């Protein structure tokens, strides 16, 4: 009798389940989403990019995982909330999530050879989670903004040797007193500052890394002499230092790469800020505060805005360019006043700046308004905008991040008062 009642209840429940299952029970126990940022169709040889897949476990039990399809230029790397060897269990109906970090680091030898690897996560379920990692390693490109000639040099660069070659010139009608430039994390856009008319040129990047016709930014009220620019690593916010009115412009970036609405902010004691950079976690912005000979560190809020900044001691000399290593442990600051580059350690806490070592190996720096950029802790590229030298210094780095030697280059003689330098 009891069994009959149980069977009837089970039948009723299953009937209800059957009716509503497409609405309620369409749940896959384990899923993988991402990556963030999205994969680019091409990646520069010698560069390194991290993408993160998120695995969601809705099963209230711990599931072991193994990962396949990670070899060559595609490797697994530890990331925050890393899945490790197990997917943590869901708490009741609350799913658990963890991250799978993938590093994409194509080599010079792989240029032009398509990479098609299936990332496979085996979690002992019905079918492994799979994602296709597909891209073409291409020759890395370094862009140099020439204030003198009003164009952008686009050159191939071997990021394993630092050698720059095969420079061509890209001109666009929107360029007017170009100063700095930066590349979106996806590598699909290069943004160029027009300091003379306080606009930003948004230039799409072709598959081979060359620039194509630019569009002028639409919301320019927040730009007043934009001298230094950067984009956060999520590719969602754009930051510009306004040299003329000592403010920071913060703009959103829409899905097409265009700059959206911009706002102006004064998060700290800004005096002719000349360049800005974000750490790889997008949690802090560092500003070369040219007029005060300081560096500011400003927290980055979730909505992209800058919080209240803290300021270093005035140990710099007309800092014009600033960049940071991917670990967030070293700052590289161009000192136009002394023609040196300061390599500073970063400390946690309010007094964020540790010891700095300023140097000019080989005496090649002639910085003026030159900016700098870093390649995977291997090379620092410094634009020498001063003294009519028209060169870029390629500095090799030691294991502590210090400068070793900085030979200069100007292949094809296209550099003309180079101020901005960026890698793609």
């Amino acid at each position, binding site marked *: 009798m009891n069994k009959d009642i149980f069977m009837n209840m089970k039948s009723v429940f299953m009937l209800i389940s059957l009716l509503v299952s497409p609405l309620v029970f369409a*749940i896959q*126990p384990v899923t993988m989403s991402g990556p963030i940022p999205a994969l680019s169709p091409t990646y520069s040889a010698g560069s390194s990019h991290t993408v993160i897949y998120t695995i969601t476990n809705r099963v209230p039990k711990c599931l072991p995982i193994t990962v396949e399809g990670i070899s060559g230029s595609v490797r697994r790397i530890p990331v925050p909330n890393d899945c490790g060897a197990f997917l943590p269990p869901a708490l009741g109906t609350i799913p658990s999530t963890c991250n799978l970090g993938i590093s994409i680091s194509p080599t010079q030898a792989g240029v032009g050879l398509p990479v098609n690897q299936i990332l496979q996560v085996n979690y002992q379920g019905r079918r492994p989670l799979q994602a296709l990692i597909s891209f073409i390693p291409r020759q890395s490109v370094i862009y140099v903004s020439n204030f003198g000639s009003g164009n952008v040099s686009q050159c191939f660069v071997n990021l394993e040797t630092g050698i720059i070659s095969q420079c061509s010139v890209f001109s666009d009608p929107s360029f007017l007193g170009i100063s700095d430039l930066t590349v979106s994390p996806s590598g699909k856009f290069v943004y160029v500052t027009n300091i003379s008319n306080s606009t930003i040129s948004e230039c799409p990047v072709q598959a081979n890394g060359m620039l194509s016709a630019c569009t002028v930014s639409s919301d320019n009220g927040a730009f007043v002499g934009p001298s230094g620019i950067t984009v956060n690593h999520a590719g969602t916010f754009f930051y510009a230092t306004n040299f003329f009115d000592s403010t920071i412009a913060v703009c959103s970036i829409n899905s097409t790469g265009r700059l959206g609405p911009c706002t102006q902010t004064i998060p700290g004691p800004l005096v002719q800020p000349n360049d800005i950079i974000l750490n790889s976690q997008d949690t802090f912005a560092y500003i070369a505060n040219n007029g005060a000979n300081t560096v500011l560190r400003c927290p980055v809020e979730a909505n992209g805005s800058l919080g209240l900044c803290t300021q270093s001691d005035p140990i710099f000399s007309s800092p014009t360019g600033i960049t940071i290593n991917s670990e967030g442990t070293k700052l590289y600051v161009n000192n136009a006043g002394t023609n040196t580059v300061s390599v500073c350690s970063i400390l946690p806490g309010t007094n964020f700046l540790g010891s700095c070592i300023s140097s000019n190996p080989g005496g090649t720096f002639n910085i003026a308004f030159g900016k700098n950029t870093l390649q995977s802790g291997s090379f620092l590229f410094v634009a020498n905008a001063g003294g009519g030298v028209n060169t870029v210094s390629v500095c090799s780095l030691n294991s502590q991040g210090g400068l070793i030697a900085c030979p200069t280059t100007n292949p094809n003689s296209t550099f003309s008062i180079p101020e901005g330098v960026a890698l793609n």
Partner: protein
Amino acid sequence: MNQKVGSKIACLILWGAAMLVQAGTMGPSTRAWYTDFEISGAGGPNWFRTDDTTLIISPFETDSNLIKTVSNRGAWKVGIGYYFFEDWLPTWNYLNHLLFEVNVYQISGTIKGAVWQYQLPQFYNYNFRAPFTSTRLMFDFKPYLFAWNRISSYLILGVGPTWNTISYREKLIAPDVPADTTLAFLDKYTSTRVAGDVGVGLSVNLTRSLSLTAEYVYGFLGNSSSANSPTYGVLLADAPSFSFKTQTLLFGLSLKL
């Protein structure tokens, strides 16, 4: 394969019976050795019964297979029997016949149900269907209990080998779940098991040799698994296994030679 075996055994039994009938018509009218033999055939509805089971994908994923319905295609049997001690047992008021039969039974149908991944209702993403056939060769003992006019009642007790064949197929019902997680088809597989029968029957004598029979038989047929043939690359630690039990009503004719 299973149905072919059943058909072959049934044909052999019918052929043997036909030869006995032919021998009976050719011989003298005195009681012959074959006169205690009988042949029988019957068919009727069948109620297959199985229990909820599990589908072991891996040591970390065990799914539930929950039975919703079983569609039955009926049952049939043919057999040949021999009445023991016919010289003196019919003189008794009770236990007046003891019939030994060799019967071939066959049932078939389809099990239908739901699949709950990880045995949780929120992961009810698939339905399954499992067509099955069971053919068994049973050695049945049928002691007759008592008779009233032309009607006799008897018990059925049997044992014998059974060949259970089943395949397994899932259908995705959750639109957001990838189709390639479905066990699209696990091929049929035949398991050989030992079966047991218990039941009761009634026999109505239409003539001295021809009887109408009605039997209720409960059969324990063991269990059966489909082949473990992965489709779409789905990993599967063990094929789904179903228990086979059946209740059958058989209406037929019995011809005593």
